[in-house]
């Protein structure tokens, strides 16, 4: 499996909480990397706007301008309007709409996954997996301390390989909750995290 290297970063928002974040996003510490990142964001937004404009232009052409008030003025006065109007007239709607949909889909893709584990001492843990697009929010799950029966690292078959995973046994649930289910970091990282997890939440590990 061609794995993008996974990084672990640890934050301490408060003295009693630790957040472990595992991410396969490229590191953005240098100035040039950050600049590239923001430029990409701006480009993405511009691309999305123009794609939407083309879609609206095509829609007005197909349905008739009267039905969309104000559209006529927009497409005649602004340069973006005339550009998208030109594209919309050149291709049939059968090409335009799928193309616009594909562009929008590509633009909102994040291209990386970020999964985190937030440990709050005496309260519980929260796992979260970032969504694959910019539009939706991360999927999170909170497990209170008294629901946790055990935490372990084990191995399992995943695709054509055997991977390590960190899992939480929740009281009254048949399946375990796998932490970092998509990225599945390496054993060294999990063990390191596991040992620190124990040190952070000694209360949790003493629960029978």
């Amino acid at each position, binding site marked *: 499996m061609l794995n993008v290297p996974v990084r672990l970063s640890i934050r301490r928002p408060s003295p009693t909480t630790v957040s472990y974040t595992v991410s396969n996003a490229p590191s953005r510490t240098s100035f040039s990397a950050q600049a590239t990142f923001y430029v990409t964001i701006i480009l993405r937004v511009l691309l999305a706007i123009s794609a939407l404009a083309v879609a609206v232009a095509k829609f007005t052409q197909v349905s008739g301008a009267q039905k969309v008030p104000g559209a006529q003025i927009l497409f005649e006065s602004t340069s973006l309007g005339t550009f998208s109007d030109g594209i919309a007239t050149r291709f049939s709607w059968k090409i335009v709409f799928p193309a616009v949909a594909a562009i929008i889909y590509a633009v909102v893709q994040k291209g990386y996954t970020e999964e985190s584990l937030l440990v709050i001492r005496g309260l519980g843990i929260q796992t979260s997996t970032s969504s694959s697009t910019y539009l939706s929010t991360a999927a999170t799950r909170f497990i209170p301390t008294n629901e946790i029966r055990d935490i372990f690292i084990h191995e399992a078959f995943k695709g*054509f390989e055997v991977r390590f995973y960190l899992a939480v046994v929740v009281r009254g649930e048949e399946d375990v909750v796998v932490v970092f289910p998509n990225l599945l970091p390496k054993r060294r990282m999990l063990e390191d995290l596991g040992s620190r997890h124990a040190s952070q939440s000694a209360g949790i590990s003493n629960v029978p």
Partner: protein
Amino acid sequence: MISDFFFPQPGSGIESHIYQLSTKLIDRGHKVIIITHAYQGRTGIRYLTNGLKVYHVPFLVVHREATFPTVFSFFPIFRNIVIREQIEIVHGHASLSNLCHEAILHARTMGLRTVFTDHSLFGFADAASILANKLLKFSLSDVDHVICVSHTCKENTVLRASLDPLMVSVIPNAVVAEDFRPLGYPANPAENSVKTRGPLPPAHPLGPHETITIVVISRLFYNKGTDLLIAAIPRILAAHPNVRFIIAGSGPKAIDLEQMLERHVLQDRVEMLGPVRHEEVRDVMVKGHIYLHPSLTEAFGTVIVEAASCGLYVVCTRVGGIPEVLPQHMTTFAKPEEDDLVAATGRAIAALRSNRVRTDRFHDQVKMMYSWTDVAERTERVYKGISGALSEEEFYGSHPGGGWSATRGRAGVQGFSLIDRLKRYYGCGIWAGKLFCLCVIVDYLILVFLEIWAPRKSIDLARDWPRKKPIENGIVDDREDARFPASARVVRRRSGRDGWRDGRVVDPG
């Protein structure tokens, strides 16, 4: 260790062979993992006693728990396991296991030493055997060493796979003699050794009218001789009034057996127990005096050793490797036919009635003959021999002018270069040879592709079972989904104690 046949499947000899051998090898300081396919409700990775790790690889099962032969599909995951566990020797078991044959092929492609253990005998005549033999020839063309459970089995395997007899060793099965004690035998013989206990008490003599119980424990299949048993039971019972049978086991022939009982109205003299678990076999055996083993083909026949260990006199057919298993005074042999089986059973009953057989001594004698520790030692020697730790003369003996083929480097140790391997496979047959060569080349290409696609260094190495460190009891959890390596827990616990307040933040990335 790799085989299709492993627990939780109710075991014939192969499963317990693999388990016992692995356990003893671990005791001798080796690292052993077992790869088998997934069973109903058992997929994934498990730890057994002593840190024996079992990979239940999810695969399609076709017939009697053997997997479907898909020559290459197993390679990626096999390579992953081999690399992460840092395997050096691949030891396949059972000739009907496709997983084992595939693994041997892939292991050779990856440049590992391979051993194959054959547990069964095969014919040469029928279509299925021809196919199976061809497959065997394919995978054994390039194996480093073969182990057979008896000399008959060795002869059979050498002929089937056209092997050099020198690269085939015979290492018999063994039994855990402590699990097969006769009734009244002390559980802890150390306290009651011969010195403290004095000479053995005389055997309990059998009265002339005392009932003799004959035990039969076998899976009721054609090859286990159930038809022979069905024919023989009424005649034996008619000839000997104070005799009864206990039959344990299940299988397709059970219905025939029951029909026979009803036809001859023998229900009161023949007890059918149905399937028994391996742990219960001893409890069934000690109820009897004679063990009847009518098998038509048997490579070794562990069960008759178990029976003798329980202090039973053994009546068995003279087939396969059975005559090698027990000494003369413990057995009566019969030809695999009805008349002779009845006669042999009659002889055995007469011998018991005249108290000529000291069955009470069988247990100690069997204990001297068969032990898994011994099996593991001999297997270890094979491992050393193929990996070059033993010199050629020491391992194979001196054979001046021995006809080693040109494709071999050091005698008996097969070279890994692709062209040498192809030469060996090409000799398999006019068409088969070319087909096998093609398979080997494809396998090699897959390996090259895998090295690019999933580079060796990106594969996470698994932790070894912590052998030296004493582990706190109760760490291994019995829950279904929580069979985790204790090592992970140990790490967690330890740092839980000393790193609790210092709050270091170290990024391992």
